[in-house]
């Protein structure tokens, strides 16, 4: 049995995203009307009950985040929809923008109404350029129908949305780097002395949310929170869009209830491993996520169970690797990514990635030393704890979990003991 669900993904391929009429026929903007009836306080408490956590990776409570933003005073306040989606193996936000752009827009309007925001930005990565104008078109249609602009649905809310393009930098998915880049600077993360919700874009209050987080809000309000939390587990409520890919028969973005097992995801939904091969490992949450061995596929896909095994949901990426892949070779592709994407601002990440690359290359070619294994682990831990932003802090996750679960693969690539004086 295939346990995919249709809450956030309900409208996928069900309507023409260039037609707002078709979206309305499917019940579009009903959640916004309901939101206006509920009022900001009730929306916030509903989101808290829903257990919705940020789907951009950091998994912070959306209800609390919105509450914090709502309490910040300001005549001009921003909402940024983070559609940078640069995490390798992640593409679910693309599905949302491509197949249900109005839902994302509706979620943003509800966020604006709740927090009293005036200006919205959708920051879409340059690599999704073919979607920029489609989303702009959807915004234009929403405006024509009075869902954007002045005094939206008589609620007194004035709110507009603009599309801004990224320019090919993974680090710009990090909220402060993203803000720097909207301000016309090179996107290096900022020192966060105050929260972005207080001082973000142009120094003004700014709420940053992932595409999926925003798109989850309309269905939660529409179906009612009680209905929504019937899905999922006690501590991981609701559903999640996953990006299933790699050596799997049916790659794609799917919506699953939290608590489904990894086995169900890979075999029932993904149709199993390509060419009848055996599963070897998974990488969860993208390049910055953990590597876990095949023997763990009966664990539940939810925040708490994954954490117990040193993994996390992250962006929702599930990368499947078959028996023919060497862990050390795979790590090299992860490392290539991070060395290219490190912004160079801080030493642990800039130099750490350089050193990890050198050592991993020795493991790939099979002339690593015993000391290399110790050193690489030490460097990885320094990066994890001392890097300035999430990029450097999570870059060594794959390596550290690989050493934990596949130590033998590293030993096999060691050809000597380097004598130290």
């Amino acid at each position: 049995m295939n346990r995919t669900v249709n809450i956030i993904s309900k409208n996928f391929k069900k309507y023409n995203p260039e037609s707002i009429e078709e979206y309305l026929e499917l019940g579009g903007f009903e959640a916004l009307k309901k939101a206006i009836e509920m009022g900001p306080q009730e929306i916030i408490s509903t989101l808290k009950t829903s257990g919705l956590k940020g789907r951009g990776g950091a998994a912070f409570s959306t209800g609390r985040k919105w509450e914090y933003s709502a309490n910040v005073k300001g005549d001009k306040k921003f909402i940024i929809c983070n559609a940078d989606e640069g995490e390798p193996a992640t593409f679910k936000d693309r599905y949302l923008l491509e197949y249900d752009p109005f839902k994302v827009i509706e979620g943003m309007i509800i966020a604006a109404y709740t927090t009293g925001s005036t200006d919205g930005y959708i920051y879409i990565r340059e690599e999704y350029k073919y979607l920029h104008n489609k989303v702009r078109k959807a915004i234009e249609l929403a405006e024509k129908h009075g869902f954007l602009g002045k005094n939206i649905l008589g609620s007194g809310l004035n709110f507009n949305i603009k599309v801004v393009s990224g320019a090919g930098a993974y680090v710009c998915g990090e909220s402060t780097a993203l803000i720097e880049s909207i301000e016309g600077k090179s996107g290096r993360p900022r020192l966060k002395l105050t929260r972005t919700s207080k001082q973000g874009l142009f120094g003004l209050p700014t709420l940053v949310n992932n595409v999926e987080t925003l798109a989850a809000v309309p269905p939660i309000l529409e179906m009612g929170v009680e209905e929504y939390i019937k899905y999922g587990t006690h501590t991981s409520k609701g559903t999640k869009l996953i990006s299933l890919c790699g050596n799997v028969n049916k790659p794609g973005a799917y919506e699953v209830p939290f608590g489904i097992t990894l086995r169900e995801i890979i075999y029932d939904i993904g149709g199993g491993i390509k060419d009848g091969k055996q599963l070897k490992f998974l990488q969860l949450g993208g390049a910055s996520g953990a590597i876990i061995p095949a023997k763990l596929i009966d664990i539940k896909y939810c925040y708490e169970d994954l954490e117990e095994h040193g993994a996390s949901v992250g962006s929702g990426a599930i990368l499947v690797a078959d028996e023919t892949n060497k862990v050390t070779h795979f790590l090299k592709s992860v490392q290539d990514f991070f060395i290219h994407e490190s912004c160079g601002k801080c030493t642990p990440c800039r130099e750490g990635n350089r050193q990890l690359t050198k050592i991993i290359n020795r493991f790939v070619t099979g002339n690593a030393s015993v000391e290399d294994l110790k050193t690489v682990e030490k460097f990885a831990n320094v990066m994890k704890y001392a890097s300035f932003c999430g990029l450097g802090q999570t870059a060594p996750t794959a390596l550290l979990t690989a050493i934990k679960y596949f130590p033998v693969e590293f030993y096999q690539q060691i050809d000597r003991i380097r004598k130290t004086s």
Partner: protein
Amino acid sequence: MDKFKVDQELIAKIDRILESYDYDDNSVVNILLEIQSHIPENYIPEEVAKYVGIELGIPTSKVYDVITFFSAINDKPKGRHVVQLCKSSVCRLNKYQTIRDVLEEELKIKMGETTKDGQFTLRYSACFGACDISPAFRIDDKVYGNLTKGKIKEIINTYRGL
């Protein structure tokens, strides 16, 4: 460079782009991307960077800070069509090397090179979110994946005369 000094047509296009952004220096990243898309060699020539800086009232060094930081903005000329092959994790598992070999054979250049006629540049890219159709490559803004050798050749051919 000199040809840009005198290329009035390009200057007019740049002016229109700057105007559409209200000469807002905060929008410099998007302005540069848009200007680049109008330059056949897919880059921001020095004269253009200087011009944009002057028009937006920001130092050229700031324009270059942006150009060099973002990998989608180039400071050196590229081919008319930029072919980018993903070699991030998913495409590695799905053997991007097979696509690379076909592309190199078909274009008769190696990764990182530009064809003599200036028509194509071939280069690696980080994941561009097409992992569901991996191994994948991009030509300009269009994404291709799930391909056979024959189909890749066909696709390349459609760009030859453009």
